[in-house]
């Protein structure tokens, strides 16, 4: 079966990775549904539990955004959408980031008010199968049980996000990976209530809300940067994407090319490339340009939409690569 991202036909390896990523996200959604229900059942009056619950609810957004985005991105480009539908990934990324930032900020304010006004959280008992136990123990048990699996799933997703070059999947994996801190934070808050330190609950809630805002802001920055057509970077935004250099290297290695430099934007999964080349002579054969284009496309599955433009001199927004020049 052929799986596409727009015009791009995915290599077998990426098809398999995509299949696993989709399956993992469904697993994540099922797990989240169980977690959110469990946490809701023992919510009580703890502000930290409330923050953890809100985080669980927010965690639904990235997997859903991913599942919708990979579906949308498969559509082929049309006359109305000549660049395809790859940007659906960036849109999903932005939506998730805004939700995270907004809810995190709300929780910080909400918990801060509780802390300043000295709201003492009241946590009583529950009657479980005829035995009366303190609800706090149940909260701790739920957080301990639900804290570990997301970390494992998150680590698995991280590798897949690299292979697929999917930033929504990366954002999701990153959040899952840090989930255990929410659990430990909540447990500390509830134990704090238990030993009579009422303020630890609100403090733990602020800590959790802080990590939500942190996730939100870093994702917001990444999503906006992508939508602003910044230079293509690796899936974790750590450095410029190596493919950019490889394209320039390849083009400048052609016998008829004196200098090459390309403008690459990340459409989400795939790159759209405008490659500028300065020919050695005043005339360029059409066949040479087409060969150069096909050469670029064959470099990597992420490269599909390539335009090779002969220019008298390179625009100043690209890094120029000359044949015997840099080895970057």
């Amino acid at each position: 079966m052929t799986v596409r991202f727009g015009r791009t036909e995915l290599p077998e390896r990426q098809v398999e990775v995509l299949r696993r990523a989709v399956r993992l996200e469904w697993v994540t959604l099922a797990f989240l549904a169980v977690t959110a229900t469990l946490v809701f059942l023992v919510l009580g009056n703890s502000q930290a539990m409330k923050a953890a619950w809100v985080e669980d609810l927010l965690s639904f957004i990235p997997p859903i955004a991913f599942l919708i985005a990979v579906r949308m991105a498969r559509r082929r480009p049309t006359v109305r959408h000549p660049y395809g539908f790859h940007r659906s990934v960036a849109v999903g990324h932005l939506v998730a980031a805004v939700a995270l930032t907004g809810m995190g900020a709300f929780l910080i304010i909400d918990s801060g008010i509780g802390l300043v006004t000295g709201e003492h959280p009241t946590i009583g008992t529950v009657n479980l199968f005829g035995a009366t136990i303190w609800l706090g123990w149940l909260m701790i048990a739920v957080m301990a049980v639900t804290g570990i699996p997301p970390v494992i799933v998150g680590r698995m997703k991280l590798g897949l996000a690299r292979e697929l070059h999917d930033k929504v999947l990366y954002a999701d994996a990153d959040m899952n990976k840090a989930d255990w801190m929410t659990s430990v934070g909540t447990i500390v808050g509830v134990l704090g209530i238990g030993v009579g330190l009422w303020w630890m609950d609100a403090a733990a809630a602020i800590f959790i809300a802080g990590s939500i805002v942190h996730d939100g802001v870093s994702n917001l920055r990444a999503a906006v940067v992508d939508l602003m057509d910044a230079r293509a970077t690796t899936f974790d935004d750590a450095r410029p994407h190596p493919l950019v250099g490889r394209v320039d290297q390849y083009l400048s290695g052609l016998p008829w090319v004196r200098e090459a430099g390309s403008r690459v934007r990340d459409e989400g999964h795939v790159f759209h490339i405008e490659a500028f080349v300065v020919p050695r002579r005043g005339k360029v054969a059409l066949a040479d340009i087409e060969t150069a284009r096909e050469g670029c496309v064959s470099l990597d599955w992420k490269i599909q939409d390539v335009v090779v433009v002969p220019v008298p001199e390179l625009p100043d927004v690209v890094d120029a690569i000359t044949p015997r020049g840099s080895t970057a």
Partner: protein
Amino acid sequence: MPRSRPVAVVAAAVSVLLLAGCGIRIPADPQGTLDRVDGGVLRAGITPNGDFVRLDGDSPSGSEIDALIAFADSLDAEVDWTVGSEEALVRGLESGDLDVVAGGLTDETPWTDKAGMTRPYGEVTLADGSTAKVVMLVPLGENAFVSRLETFLTDEAATEGVGR
């Protein structure tokens, strides 16, 4: 994410666990309500309501009065009754002048941001035929006290049918 954060979280968790291990009772009262009532005085605020709290005799009577006296007995405590409107009594809880408020209150009570609520321990049939769950109000966050009261009320309600 800075590397020091997980370390700080774990350190906090461990120190709380150590504290908990040093004979501190969980849950505990920030204001020490249970310790004060134990062998002392239970300051109960009551407001008349049906069979729960009646004020027609020399001393208050009713199912919740019986329950509170029995609860105080279980702690070797005397009961000091304060009669007032719900609002006045809730203010008493907030200012620390009262330990518990009873008067056929239900879990639909609007006072929940000013007072803690016990787990429902009985049911009451309202005028319109619907049923509501009966609770008592306690000071916010006095979790040892509320846990003790809830445990007592649950056991009592099961054996004596306190809530009507």
